[in-house]
């Protein structure tokens, strides 16, 4: 049933009319989301969308090309600071500043891609780690970037007299950009470039032998991935309204990597699922632990008995960690693997 009979069947955006139908239904659903969901959730949803852009981009690098990056928080920061500063200091309109910041990030991605030609595995991760930390030091020490205090982003003026203020209006902007970038990523993967990435991942020597230019494609992969991170960072700045260098740290880079691994390496859907799950868990899981019905009192008792005074606040991290470990142990393909299983189950249901 999934048999492909020709090349053009393989590169279609929608595999069948069924997929097309449900994709459109899903799009209608997410575009009408403000009708069913209270406004309160849209800040979190915006963060989810931003992280989806980033995870899809990171997956191009990690999942498809087989390179590793512990410096993506750096690209994320370049995007955030780039967009805000281009608008503040050079009065560029938003729709120019955002892609420009993305390209600045992509340029740094290209630079970082150069050592990737010689380095692999742990060595590459150290190089990228160094990059991430350096960027934060530079931004933190330079008054032009607002120093350690941080900067206030300008109003989100998208031109034509529209200034987006509410979370819901920002949601629509970010949603449209996310959809475009996700479709772009899916299409890149079905072109010559995408196949070159996969060839490098599977064996870079073999890829070179069959004519893939390693220099070009490895740096390209870094650049594309950094571009996605830059765009995500630019939008993140507006979701937040005010930011400082502190949060763009090593832990954030690792969280990004976790999103991709938990979601599923080498699949667009994996990036989306992983980013959604990890963001929601990290930002809203067990935050209101004391006020939760039934288990709240129980957890408070456990914390008072065995933990320190701030033990309660650690439950969120503990559960997040357990979920991550659980997924990686029981489903090596990540959430994408879970999705495949659900699909398979329904295909043969009820037998």
């Amino acid at each position: 049933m999934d048999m492909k009979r020709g090349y053009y069947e393989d590169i279609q955006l929608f595999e069948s009319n069924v997929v097309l139908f449900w994709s459109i239904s899903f799009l209608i659903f997410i575009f009408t989301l403000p009708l069913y969901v209270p406004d309160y959730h849209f800040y979190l949803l915006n963060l989810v969308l931003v992280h989806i852009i980033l995870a899809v981009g990171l997956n191009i690098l990690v999942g498809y090309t087989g390179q590793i990056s512990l410096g993506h928080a750096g690209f994320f920061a370049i995007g955030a600071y780039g967009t805000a500063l281009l608008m503040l200091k050079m009065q560029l309109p938003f729709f120019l500043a955002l892609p420009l910041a993305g390209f600045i990030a992509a340029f740094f991605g290209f630079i970082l891609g150069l050592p990737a030609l010689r380095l692999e595995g742990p060595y590459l991760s150290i190089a990228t780690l160094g990059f991430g930390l350096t960027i934060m030091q530079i931004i933190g020490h330079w008054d032009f970037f607002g120093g350690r205090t941080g900067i206030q982003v300008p109003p989100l003026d998208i031109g034509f007299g529209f200034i987006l203020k509410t979370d819901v209006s920002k949601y629509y902007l970010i949603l449209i950009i996310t959809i475009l970038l996700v479709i772009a990523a899916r299409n890149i993967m079905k072109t010559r470039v995408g196949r070159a990435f996969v060839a490098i991942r599977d064996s870079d020597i073999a890829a070179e032998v069959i004519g893939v230019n390693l220099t070009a494609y490895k740096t390209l992969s870094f650049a594309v991935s950094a571009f996605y991170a830059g765009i995500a960072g630019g939008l993140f700045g507006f979701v937040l309204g005010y930011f400082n260098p502190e949060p763009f740290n090593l832990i954030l880079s690792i969280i990004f990597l976790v999103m991709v691994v938990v979601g599923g390496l080498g699949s667009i859907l994996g990036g989306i699922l992983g980013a959604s799950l990890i963001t929601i868990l990290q930002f809203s899981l067990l935050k209101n632990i004391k006020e939760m019905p039934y288990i709240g009192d129980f957890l408070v008792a456990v914390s008072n008995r065995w933990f320190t005074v701030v033990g309660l606040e650690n439950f969120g991290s503990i559960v997040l960690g357990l979920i991550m470990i659980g997924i990686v142990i029981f489903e090596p393909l990540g959430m994408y693997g879970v999705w495949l299983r659900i699909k398979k189950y329904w295909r043969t249901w009820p037998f």
Partner: protein
Amino acid sequence: MAKKRFLIFPFMVVLFIFVMSAVSYGAAPGFDDKEIRIASWGPMTGPAAPWGTVNRGPAVICAIVNEEGGIHGRKLKHFARDDQYNPAQTKVVVKELVEKQGVFAFVAGTGSACGMAVKDYMAENKIIWVAPAISVKELISPVNPYIFALMPLYEDEASILTKYVVDKMKIKEIGVLYQNDAFGKAALDGIRQRLAKNNMKAVAEIPIEATDKDLSSYILKLKNSGAKAVMMWLTPSAAVIALKTAATVNYKPEWVASETLSDLGLMHRISGGLWEGVITGAFVLPPESQHPLMVKYRNASTKYTPEERQSLFYMAGNMFTEPLVDALKRAGKNLSTEAALKALNSTKNFQGIGPKVTWTSNQHQGTDSIQIWRCGPNGSTILLQDWTSNELATWKKK
């Protein structure tokens, strides 16, 4: 077969709605007939966790108020949330507190960037923020009608401490060791302003980075400059490293430190006793003070929150909440945000365990007064100078 594939998406969509609706409530007002909800946020986990202590303190004063029958029959309920010192998280927890729990006002709240990220959101929703546990000039100028600041500005504190060193201790050679950020630079401004008034100049002004671990070259510079007093605006760990390094090169100036390093018990312990003799500014009475209110808070803390260490910053959480409780009492039985704002704006010379606080509708920096302490044996507190204000404060001139 295709029919079954049709079922996957609705299944997902239904699941999504279910998850989202399970956690959604309507936006609640800040109070009802039974209770008034107040909240604080700060880092409770992660590397910045020690700074979050102050945000659990208000639980004590709330317990006392409730024991005494509440405010006009309404009990106080306090929420404390962990934001891991990350502005993105702060916004999530603040939105949750405002829109789900229905919080009337915030007290304390740690992290400059965290506070800056949520201040506009709070103003839009008419949420009052009393006594941020940060000292940031942007919060008070221009006047934000919903923010009532209490922490003395770092520049005021630095100015008062410098005056003490110059006038009382008669030291002319002053060196400054400051963290190279807004916190350190604000203090440097205050020191320069005070010294300029006395036609003096610091013999050394040395910026250090928060991440610097080796301070030996800076300490040697200070020693060579002949500084007899060194004023430091640093993180606790950097301050301890500075003292230890100075001890190894046998350099013994008078050390003067900021209010952020005034938890003498803690500093004495982590410096291995070197903190003894250090002079610090202070924005709250020492936790071992015999002031009747402090005794009351200590007893209540022993009773209601026995697991907490009664540290300086934990007790300071009460100091930050006192003016709000006072204003709510004065606001009367017909509580509303407007009534509370009116009461807060008419706060005049209110004093609990902190300095005297005055807020008017066009001046929301409540005080510039600090005490000056010296660290005694075993981290005890020796009072050098009672509440003193800064006659050079820039924000007072209009």
